[in-house]
């Protein structure tokens, strides 16, 4: 009798304790995942556009989650004030001259803020400190896109110039006297230089992105199997990048040649015949041009392929909005 009552009490007790343990374990795991029980400090940044970033999204440093977005507010001048909550233990990596960047957590993932840069010499960020927001094409597709556009433009200009040189329509004098032409050449060279720089950083960025992406794929292991097995998209991306690199290299070479030529033109030191009579140089110029042409076409095709790959469809749709 009494024993029965006590048995019930014990069973109810055990039952409740077990359930509470499950609950607490759940809360703890959740806290672990959300890093809720880490000590944190606030950091702010101002970005021109957050592209759908939400409160609760992740903040990364070197590909490691170090915090979450605490709040997003519009400032008076129409920019976006993002307050992040960063784990205290990550503070030692964040300096006052570190900068924030908007990115995505994978190709179809959430928006994230990445923190990077910062010289070791500069002091660490303080609570509520402001980080520089880095605008600009942070997005690998954008980089690829603009790079290819630039390439096309540059190639066209270069072809123009060199065509004229080669056909002799532009004799040296004509070329020299034709100030428009000269200006054009100057401009083109400038342009090429700028594009080159952009491509350089851009492709570096793309490579970073891509390697981060593929590391993530590898790390997630079997779960993202399907993404990994979808090698077409991966190949497309890496092909584009190799292409871009190759194009860039040729372009560098070519522009060096051109520069040399124009320098000699400008300085008037060089014998006029050197450039014009130098068949080898002309031939070189021509083949380089062809190279650029074909590689930029190739690049375009690859980009198109990437764009039409299934996995990116959603991405471009989003971009369209």
């Amino acid at each position, binding site marked *: 009798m009494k024993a029965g009552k006590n048995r019930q009490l014990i069973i109810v007790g055990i039952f*409740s304790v077990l359930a509470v343990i499950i609950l607490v374990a759940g809360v703890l795991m*959740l806290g672990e995942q959300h890093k809720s029980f880490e000590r944190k400090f606030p950091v702010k940044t101002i970005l021109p556009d957050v592209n759908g970033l939400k409160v609760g999204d992740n903040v990364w440093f070197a590909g490691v989650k170090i915090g979450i977005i605490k709040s997003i507010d519009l400032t008076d001048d129409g920019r976006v004030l993002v307050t992040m909550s960063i784990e205290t233990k990550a503070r030692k990596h964040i300096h006052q001259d570190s900068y924030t960047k908007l990115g995505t957590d994978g190709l179809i993932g959430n928006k994230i803020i990445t923190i990077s840069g910062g010289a070791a010499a500069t002091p660490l960020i303080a609570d509520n400190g402001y980080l520089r927001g880095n605008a600009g094409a942070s997005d690998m597709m954008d980089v690829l896109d603009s790079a290819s556009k630039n390439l096309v433009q540059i190639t066209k200009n270069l072809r123009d110039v060199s065509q004229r040189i080669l056909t002799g329509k532009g004799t040296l004098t004509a070329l020299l006297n034709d100030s428009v032409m000269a200006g054009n050449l100057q401009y083109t060279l400038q342009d090429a230089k700028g594009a080159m720089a952009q491509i350089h950083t851009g492709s570096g960025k793309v490579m970073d992105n891509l390697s981060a992406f593929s590391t993530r794929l590898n790390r997630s292991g079997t779960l993202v199997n399907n993404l990994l097995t979808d090698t077409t998209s991966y190949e497309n991306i890496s092909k584009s990048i190799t292409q871009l690199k190759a194009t860039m290299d040729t372009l560098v070479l070519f522009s060096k040649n051109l520069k040399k030529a124009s320098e000699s033109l400008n300085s008037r030191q060089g014998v006029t015949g050197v450039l014009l009579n130098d068949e080898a140089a002309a031939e070189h110029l021509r083949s380089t041009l062809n190279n650029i042409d074909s590689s930029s076409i190739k690049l375009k095709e690859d980009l198109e392929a990437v764009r039409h790959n299934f996995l990116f469809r959603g991405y471009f749709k989003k971009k369209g909005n």
Partner: protein
Amino acid sequence: MLRFFTEVFRPPYEFRETIKQCYKVGYKSLALVSLTGFITGIVFTNQSRPSLAEFGATSWLPGLIAIAIVRALAPLITSLIVAGKVGSNIGAELGSMKVTEQIEAMEVSATNPFKFLVVSRVVATTLMNPLLVCYMAFVGLLGAYLNVHQHEDTSFLAFFQHGFPSISFLDLFASLIKSVVYGFTVGITGCYQGYNATKGTEGVGKAANVAVVVSMFLIFIEELIIVLIVNQFRP
């Protein structure tokens, strides 16, 4: 219902009876709830896989299931089971006590039948339902894990690491609130129907039946309202 709140905090407490009811509500429903939760986990995972696989996104399964189970399935299914099992039981038990004048007999023996019968039962369902929901969620996730493990060869850790980020504290909190509210609903509806059963055996059957139907209906209405309210808090 008002009477419940006026009497629940007033001594003397029917501690023994409450424990007994907790035992009946909680422990006795555990097997049923666990089994259902386990099957729900497996079946839900299995059913969700094809549509996610179509997008090549089976990696989202743990997250999807965690959300589904924690946010919706565990509180709802558990409470419906409790409504069916415990609600009908309470309705029938109190109903038959009513028609055989046992409740009246308690009253004339100068004890408070409301406290003894109603308060203890409502407290029991209100306390035990969240606990059952915890079990259900746990077992459901376990079932889902087994299914995912079988098909995608995922490790336990990876499953939970992918599952948990999808859940927020708000989800967890909302589910707890829900299960408390549903448990209270089941208890109070069963007691109300039983306590107010009209004379005769037919009244007992009706009390049990109506207790289940009404509490299930109320649970769905409350689900709707709570989800609407909770969504106000979602960022």
